[in-house]
């Protein structure tokens, strides 16, 4: 395996220590795997808590900070944190205003979250949970539980976090976040595998002339391999399916996120964005906001996730609101 690491057993601890050094003005570590804001949010505002495995840097903890997350509970590489750490974070976040608890739909995360929520209920920790499951790889109409939570959690943190910062109530924030959750869809494409940094094994195989649409962010299979397509064709194919899933049509405004998986360059994402913009223009849909970059990575996998959401004035206002986190600063 060609990675700059030490003992694979200590990957998560070491990377979190480095993360805390790099961003000491913004975040601090609690009991090794809970990332908190260095300057906590006022107690009368709703807190945002999330959980997820490591190995996806900067996600998820890179979005802890003013205007986004308050607590991120980190597991191990690609593995959800256990329920004890999750309930610990919910206890830290406990406040009368309540907690929005954002969970990505992956088996381990959901199991941990459910067990933590059981305990939170026993301890009267006020919270509402929201499950992201915007992957349309199994079909836009597949049951929610079959649809994974992909990069869409990050704009959701952004929007819900801005509303929390603005002093909205837990019910209002939950309603807003749910609206965004229902407005969005994501599809991933992979070209080259990544190496699992703990096992050293490739997480999937693809032939030299193949790519796969619909792959998950741990190498879980998509709709099967297909021949390599140009940037323009890939963009049209994926965006076409996504626009259908979110039922966007002429006159609508969308947010578009192109999230690089690791080895796919920003150069490529810009080329794909250009194709998307042309596609949208032809359909009379407005590209109201966009982002190209690596927010939720899968080690050095080549590929990207395309996330589309239909937006209204309120969602756009919160999307553009200021924030300051290790991975995203908006003035």
């Amino acid at each position, binding site marked *: 395996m060609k990675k700059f690491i030490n003992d694979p057993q200590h990957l998560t601890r070491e990377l979190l220590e480095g993360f805390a050094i790099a961003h000491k003005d913004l975040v601090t570590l609690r009991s090794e795997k809970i990332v908190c804001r260095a300057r906590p949010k006022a107690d009368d505002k709703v807190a945002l808590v999330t959980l997820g495995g490591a190995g996806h840097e900067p996600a998820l903890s890179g979005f802890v900070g003013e205007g986004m997350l308050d607590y991120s509970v980190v597991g191990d590489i690609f593995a959800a944190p256990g329920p004890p750490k999750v309930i610990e974070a919910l206890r830290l976040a406990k406040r009368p205003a309540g907690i929005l608890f954002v969970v990505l739909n992956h088996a381990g995360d959901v199991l941990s979250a459910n067990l933590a929520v059981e305990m939170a209920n026993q301890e009267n920790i006020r919270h509402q949970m929201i499950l992201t499951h915007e992957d349309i790889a199994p079909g836009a109409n597949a049951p929610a539980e079959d649809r994974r939570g992909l990069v869409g959690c990050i704009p959701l943190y952004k929007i819900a976090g801005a509303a929390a910062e603005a002093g909205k109530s837990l019910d209002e924030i939950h309603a807003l976040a749910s609206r965004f959750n229902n407005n969005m869809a994501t599809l991933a494409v992979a070209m080259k595998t990544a190496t699992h940094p703990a096992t050293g094994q490739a997480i999937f195989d693809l032939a030299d002339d193949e790519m796969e649409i619909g792959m998950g962010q*741990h190498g879980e299979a998509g709709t099967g391999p297909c021949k390599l397509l140009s940037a323009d064709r890939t963009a049209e194919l994926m965006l076409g399916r996504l626009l259908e899933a979110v039922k966007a049509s002429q006159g609508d405004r969308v947010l578009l996120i192109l999230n690089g998986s690791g080895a796919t360059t920003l150069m490529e994402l810009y080329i794909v964005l250009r194709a998307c913009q042309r596609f949208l223009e032809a359909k009379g849909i407005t590209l109201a906001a966009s982002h190209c970059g690596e927010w939720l990575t899968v080690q050095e996998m080549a590929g990207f996730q395309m996330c589309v959401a239909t937006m209204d004035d309120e969602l756009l206002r919160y999307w553009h609101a200021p924030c300051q986190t290790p991975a995203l600063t908006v003035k």
Partner: protein
Amino acid sequence: MTDNISAPHFRRMLEAARTRIREQHETLSRLDAAVGDGDHGTTMLRAMDAAAQAASQHPDAGLQQLLSAAGWAVMACDGGSTGPLLGSWFLGMSEAAAGRAELDVPALAAVFESGVAKLQKQSRAQIGDKTMMDALLPAVAALKAADPGQGVTAALAQAAEAAARGAADTANMRAKFGRARHLGDRVLGHPDPGAVSVSLIFRGFGEGLVA
């Protein structure tokens, strides 16, 4: 031949199960690479290390306390799907072991059953869904069906055999849970790694008992 199981036995059983997992963890990760994300061996190793270590850190603990410590240790080990499921199993076992110093065959079966019941609250997976349940449920059923007169060693051996058969059967199943459920027919021919782990654990339990 051991007739009844007490806390020291269970400590040795966990130890032996851990050894089995350690030997096979690379194979388990490879199995997971075919149907999931390739980390099941690493995770199981972490989980069983945590369980065995917790047990050995409570040398004077009774059965309930021992299983509870193991369960929480597994819960805390950041073990993806495996941690909460396996942790729940141990915690459920712990609940049924309350107030008991020793377990004969029917009591052992009841303890395992209670563990499975707790696990099922999280899992919702049924027989045939290509998960660890396909090894666990047959194992517990075998334990329940075992002739109490044969003693726990023989009963556990039958459970381990049932688990192994159950795990092997998962190769012909499509997945309804976990990361593998997205794969459709592509998982056919590959056994479920979680089920294989459970069969290794039961084999270890048996070995720990006779050791």
